[in-house]
């Protein structure tokens, strides 16, 4: 199974090699899409992970025991269809081909699997129809 995993780790885990643990102990294939640490030393990592369902399940349990907040997400953005005019400007900054528009109906299409969570589309949408999904 392939999914996105978003983790938020507390300051005391900043120097723990979490990604290494996920690869070594849970045999996950990992692609880091985004990572940052804020001024309070709280870190966020957005992974794209591929692995067996059971192992992903164990991973989440293990991370939680360490005190890491984690959630499996489909995507970091959502589109308010009432606001979207299907103009297509968002695709101008979407290089993972997650957002596409074209024949036959020229309606905006969003493929969450392809979204890499860059969120460049959010400020570009003139109708403010694309928004970041808040963390739990």
């Amino acid at each position, binding site marked *: 199974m392939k999914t996105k995993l978003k983790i938020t780790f507390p300051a005391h885990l900043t120097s723990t090699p979490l990604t290494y643990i996920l690869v070594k102990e849970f045999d996950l294939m990992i692609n880091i899409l985004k990572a940052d640490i804020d001024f309070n030393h709280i870190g966020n990592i957005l992974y794209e992970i591929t692995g067996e369902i059971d192992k992903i399940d164990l991973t989440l349990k293990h991370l939680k025991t360490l005190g890491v907040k984690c959630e499996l997400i489909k995507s970091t953005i959502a589109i308010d269809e009432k*606001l979207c*005019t*299907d*103009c*297509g*400007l*968002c*695709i*101008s*900054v979407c*290089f993972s081909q997650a957002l596409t*528009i*074209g024949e036959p*109906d*020229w*309606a905006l299409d969003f493929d969450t699997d392809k979204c890499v969570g860059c969120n*460049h589309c959010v*400020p*570009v949408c*003139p*109708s*403010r129809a694309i928004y970041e999904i808040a963390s739990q």
Partner: protein
Amino acid sequence: MANQRSIQEINEKIKRGVAIVMTAEEVIDLVSDNGIENAFNQVDVVTTATFGPMCSSGAFLNFGHSDPPIRLENLSLNDVVASGGLAAVDTYIGATDEAPKSNGEYGGAHVICDLIEGKTIELKANAKGTDCYPETSVKRNVQLKDLNEAFLFNPRNSYQNYASAINLSPEPIYTYMGTLLPDGQNITYSTSGQLSPLLNDPYLKSIGIGTRIFLAGAQGYIAWNGTQFSTSVDRYDNGIPKSPAATLSVIGDLKNMNSAYISPAVFKNYGISLNVGIGIPIPIVNCEILKHCAISDAEIQTNIIDYSVKKRSKPVVQTTTYKQLRSGQITVNGKDIKTAPLSSLKKAREIADTLKKQIQRGEFLLTEPVEYFSLNSKVKPMKEEGTKNEN
């Protein structure tokens, strides 16, 4: 007479419910399958449409008089400044004015659309107080239904052949054509191409002052030529201008508008604009008019302009067609570059189709322009200090 019919005849057919109406996309196939002469007998009206950001837009509003009366001199609507330069309780609110504390996220376009949606707007105003208008300040919560008149009046809409945009500089730039990535990584374009009103009547033979149009869901009118109206431009053999050319001033009643066809647009680090939906019916009075309506995206050429050049005249990087722009990718300087629209073709199609149905049902009659537009119009730049402008 063969191959000729009058607008009056077309309107009679519309009233009888027998007029044949097609969108500017549908008519392309009709003409290519049957030829112009045969196609002429199979279509009476072609509907065109566009839906995209049109910054030069705004609305006139009249609030009715307070008691004691005030002349609104410094006024704001939801903190967006509107003109205090008209008599007493009239104002004009421009789409691009921003509310100071909104961080560029709320402006005149939002006020206009909030009114259309029936939302409550806060009117704040003050004045010096005179014998005629003694009151010096008011603060009221109003809705569209509380106003006497409220009409959109957009000085420049529906640009004929607006250029597409690229950025060849090494830094990203933030424009009304969207965010243009460095080193020419994307191209944006903004018309509905073969469905666009003024590309279907390049010489404005059927569109003029007084033409009844679909404006944001209401029946509106062309009030005048648009500002920066430029018709004496170089043209391709099919009549399509080689650079942005004609524009329209349009007017329509806010009270009949539908927020499905008009909405605010916010462009990062640029500002606020208004998405306006416009549909214009073209009466097929002769074969020449029909020939122009049948022009397809493959035959509409447009320029790709480098927006990173911070001058009035920006260089043309390449000429392309709407067919290529619509394909999602163009080769520029040997590199494949992604293209993206900023006007909604889906909405434009909805408008062309809605207008078609309104005409078929006899709810929308066609008009002969009261006055046709000049084909010799030129645009002047802003006058430089110490120079003389020609003309």
